[in-house]
C-alpha cells in the first residue's frame, strides 16, 4: 500500500484516498466548439508514462481535499505532493 503525503494531513495510507487520474486535465472552456475527436481526447485519453507522473489523489477518509502527487510509476517513489492547482477553466459558456 502506498504512503501518500497529503499536503494537509501528512503521510497517510493509500486506502484513505481515492485515485483521480492524471492531473491538470482542465475541462475545455467551450466544449461545443470542439470536434468529436478533441472531445474524446479530453474524455478518454490520458498519458501513461513509465516514469514521473503527476496524478490527483482525493483524501476521502481524511481532510477531503484533492492534491497533486508526483509519483514514479515504475518504482512508486513519491516526489512531491501539493494542493490541487485547480483553476477557472470555464470560459463564457460556463
Amino acid at each position: 500500500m502506498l504512503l501518500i503525503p497529503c499536503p494537509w494531513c501528512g503521510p497517510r495510507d493509500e486506502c484513505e484516498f481515492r485515485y483521480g487520474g492524471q492531473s491538470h486535465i482542465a475541462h475545455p472552456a467551450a466544449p461545443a466548439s470542439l470536434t468529436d475527436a478533441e472531445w474524446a481526447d479530453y474524455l478518454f485519453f490520458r498519458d501513461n508514462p513509465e516514469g514521473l507522473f503527476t496524478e490527483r489523489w482525493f483524501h476521502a477518509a481524511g481532510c477531503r481535499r484533492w492534491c497533486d502527487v508526483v509519483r514514479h510509476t515504475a518504482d512508486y517513489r513519491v516526489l512531491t505532493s501539493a494542493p490541487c492547482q485547480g483553476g477557472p477553466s470555464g470560459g463564457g459558456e460556463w
Partner: protein
Amino acid sequence: MVTGRRISGEPDTSVLFDGRELPAVRGEPLSAALLAAGVRTAAAGVRTGRPRGVVGIGTAEPGAQVRVEAPEFRALAPATGVEVRDGLIAASTAGLGALPVTYRPPQRGPSGPQSSSPITHDLQQEPTGPEVFPPVSHRDPQQEPAGPRPSSPAGRDPQRGSSGPSAFPVVAHRDLQQESPGGQASPSAGRTPPRGDARWAHCEVLVVGAGPAGLAAAAAAAQRGVRVILADEAPRPGGDALGLDPATDRWIAGTTARLADAPEVRLLTRTTVIGHYDHGELVALERRPDGTHLLWRIRARRTVLASGSVERPFAFAGNDLPGVMLAGAAAAYPRRHGVLPGERITVSGCHDEALLAAAALHDAGADIAAVADARPEPGADALAGLARRGIEVRTATAAAGTVPDGRGELAAALLAPVAADGTVTGPAERIGCDLLAVSGGHDPAAALAVQAGGRLRWSEGHAAFLPEGLPATTTCAGALTGVRSVRAAAEQGDRAGRAAAAAALAEGAAPAAMSARGAPPAPETGAASDTGTAPGAGSGSADLPPAGRSGGAEARTAPPMALFTVVRPGGDAAEVFIDLQRDAALDGVRDAVAAGMRSIEHVKRYTTAGTGPDQGRTSATVLTGALAGLLGRGMDEVGGTAPRPPCTPVPFSALAGRARGELLEPLRRTPMNAWHEEHGAVFEDVGQWRRARYYPRDGEDMRAAVLRECAAAREAVGMLDASTLGAITVAGRDAGAFLDRIYTGTLSTLRPGRCRYGVMCTADGMVLDDGVVARISEEEYLVSTTTGNAERVLEWLEEWAQTEWPHLCVHLFNATDHWAVASLVGPASRDVMRELAPDMDVSAEGFRFMSVREGTVAGIPARVLRVSFTGELTYEVNVPAWHGLALWEAAVEAGRRYGVTPYGTEAMHVLRAEKGFIVVGHETDGSVTPLDLGMDWAVAKRKEFVGKRSLTRPDTARPDREQLVGLLPEDPGALLAEGAQLVAEAPGPAGGGRSGPGAGRRGPGERIAAPIGRVTSAYDSAALGRTFALGLLRSGRERHGERLYAVHMGEAVPVRVADPVFYDREGSRRDG
C-alpha cells in the same frame, strides 16, 4: 524397523496423530514427536499418493503436511511448524482435497540406477494432437479409457504421471465421509475457524528473522533508541543457531532478554513476515499460542532482512520416501529437541556442513552407515573430524536411489559415483539404513529481498542465489547473504542494525522517545566495533571448525558444489521428485523442455513445481538447476520464478480479522428502524442501509403484502421511511451557478421555497444520479440523491468544486444522517397532514406541488416537501434525525382512521415504476444517457453542463441506442425476470446462430436471436391488475406495440412494448 527415538527430555504430554497417541514434549514441533515415535509416514503425495514423511525442521517442510483438528483447526500445516500443546489432534493429509480421479501409482521396486524396471518414458508410444485435451465439461466418467490415458503433446500429462500396478496401498481417495468426524461431507464443515485480528505498527527499523544476524541487528538498532520490531517465525529466537553450542545459546538468551526489556523494541515470535509492499509496508502473520491470528501491517523506515536460509535437497530416484531427510535438519533434531530421527543413517551431501551433520548425528548416538560427498575434495577439517570418529567419506559419490520396504518407507540407500554435474557414472552400492540424510546446500530465504526490489544472482562460490541491488531502505544480513558462520552473521547484523537506525534517524524527525532519551544520531562508524555482544566463533562440535568462508585463517574448508539432480543419463525420472508438495518430478521438467519450453515460469506452470503450500521455498533452486542442466544454460540465465507475497499460506480468517458477520461492513439503520422491527418488517440491504422491504401481515407472502401496500398508497394513504435518501446541502454565493454546471437542468432560476427534479451526468454523458433539488434560501440548496449514492455524489460535487471551479463560492455538506424522513403518500395524506400539522396550510392552493415549507409537524420542527415519487399526493416530512421515531409513531397514530399503511422499498419500486420513474442503478448502469431515458425535458439546451458535449457524440446520438420502454407480458400474470434479455424472435430450432447463457436448459440445436434489450425492473401491479416491466430496448421509442420475447434461464415470455408510463399519464393525482 524401529527408527527414531528420544535421547533426552521427558515427554510431558501426548498428541493424537491419525488416532494414535504419541508421547510428546510441550513446545516441540509435531515433527519431533512423530520422529521420536518412529512415525515415518505422515502424509501422502497429492497426486501420486506415495507415502511422505518429515523432511526438514523449522517452517520449510516439503514432506509432512498435516491437518490439525484441535485445539484449533488448520486445514494444512507443516508438521515442523505445529507446536505441541495439550490436546493436539492432527492427521495426515492423505487424499484430502484430491480430485476424484483414478490414479495408478508407478510400479514400486528398487528404483534408481540398479532398477531393472523398463523405461516407461517413450515419446513415440504416446498419441499426440489437440484431441488429447478433452474439455472437462464433456468428460464422461463412463467413457474413461481403461488403458493408459492419452497424454499431452509433451509426452505425458503432468497431472497424472505414469501408470502401473500398485505395490502399496493407495490412500489418495479415502472417503471424506469416513475422514471427518461426525460424517460431515466437507473436512472443514461446521468447524469454527480461528479468530483473527489486525494490528498496525510503525517503527524506524524492522528486523525480519531472529537468528544471530537478526538478533544482533535488533540489538544494535535498539541501542540507538529507535523503535524496533523484530519478527521471527519460530516460537523462540535463535534461528538455525539455536542449540549449536552452549556459548551461542547463552548469547541468544542474553540478547533476547535485553531486547525484551528494551522499551522501544517489540519482539514478535511465531510471526512470519509474509510480504514486502510499497513504501516500507510489510505485512506479518502472528500465530499466537492461543490459536488466534494477528495480521500486522508494519510501516518501517528501514528494514533489515535477516531471514536466514533454507536447506535444499538434491533430487534422485525415490528421494521422496519416508526416511529421506535433509541432513542439517536431521542433525538439528537431536540437539534442539532431543530426538534422534534414525538409528542407522546414511549421509549424502556436497558441502562441508553435511559432513558436520554426519559427525553430529554420530555424536548423538546414531550408527553412521555411510557418508558420501559429491565433491572429489571435501574440506579437510570436516574429513578429519569424521576420520577421528572412524567414519570414512566416499568422495565424488552421492545418493542416487532408494529401496523401499513393504510399507513404502526407506530400507536402503543407493550410493553411486557421480560427475561434477550429478550424472551417475558407475554402478551403485546398496547401503541398508533407516535414514538417508541428504543436503544440496543452502538457499538464502530471499523472497522479501526480491519483493523489496532486489535481484537474485547465482554465486558459484556459495552455490546459491544471493540477493543484490536492494533499495537503500532495505539491507540484508546473515545467511541471507551467504554467510555461514554464526560469528560473521552476528557481526554483519550488528553493522546492518546500526546503519539502519542511523539512516532512519537522519531521514526523518527523531521520534519522541528518542529525544526524550537524548541519544543523538551518531555518524556511522563502518565496521562493527561492539564485538563484545557477538558470540564466540565456532559452531558444531568442539573439535570441528565452523563451516563457511569466514572461519579462522587456519580453517581448511572447501567450497560447496552445486548439485541438483543425481540421475543416470536418460534414466527414468518419474520418481526423481523436484517438488514433493506438488509431486512434481524430473520427468515433467524433461517433458516441458521436450515441448519447447525454455522459461522457468512456463516450466513451473507445466510441472506445477513451486505451486505448493510453501510456493517453492524448498524446491525452487533444484528446479532451476535441473532446468539449467537440461538446457545447458547457466543458473542466472534460467533464473527463478517471482516470489510473490504471501510467502507462506495465510488463513482467510486471519485476513478477515474481525471483519466477519455483523462487522463485515458498517450497517446503517434509520431512526425508525426499531418500529419496523417491532412490526415484523422484512428487510433488505440497500448499499449500507438496512431498509424495510415490506411489512407482511399474518401469512402474507411478499407479493400479497406488496399488492396491499401499493393499493393503500393509491387509494388511501401509505407511509414510507425515506430517511435513507441522500441529502446534501449546497450553500454559498455561487451555489446556483455551481448546480447549473452539475445538473442537466437549470437550478439558479429556482425560486426559494421551490423544488425541481434534476439529473446529473458524468463527463461522458451517462446518468450519474437523479433527485429533487430544493432551494431553501437564496444561498442554500438541498440536493437529494439516490439511497446509497450520497457519498458518491458528494465526492463528485467536491471534485468539481475543488479542482475545476475553486473560484466559485460553494460549501458542501452531507446532511443525510441529520434528517429522518417520513413520506406520506396517497389521496388521504392531506387529511393525515392536517391532523399532524394543524398550523400548516397543506391545501392544494396553499402548499403547491414542488414546493418546500418549514413548520411544525407532530410538534417537531420540520421541513416538508411536496414532491412525488409515486404520482400520488405526497408530503415528504423531514425532521431532525433524533425525532424520526416520534414523527413516525405520531403519523401512524394520526393516520389510523385514514387507514395509513407503512410500505417498504418493494412497494415503493412498484409505485414509481407504474409511473415510469427510473431508479438509478435499475434503469441506469453507467451506459445510459438522459436522452435514452426519454428525459429530453430535463436537459437544458442553452447552457453548458458536465457531460453536455457527450450527448452529441456519434455513439450517444445514434438512433438505435437502447431506450427506456414499458413491457407488458402477454400473460398478465407472468412476472418477468429482471435482467432477462429481449429478443425479437421466439427461440426456435437452430440454423446455427449463437447460444446464450442458459442454453443448456433448452433442447439441443435450439438457438436464440441476438438480444436487442433487457428487462431492468419487473413487478406485479395492484393498480394495473397485472404484471408489467420497464426495460431498455434498442430504438425502443419506435417499437411501442411490437411483440418481443423476454428470455431468461431457458424460458421465453412473449411481451408487448409499451410507453413506460403505465399509470395516471395525465398527472392528475399529484394534488390529491
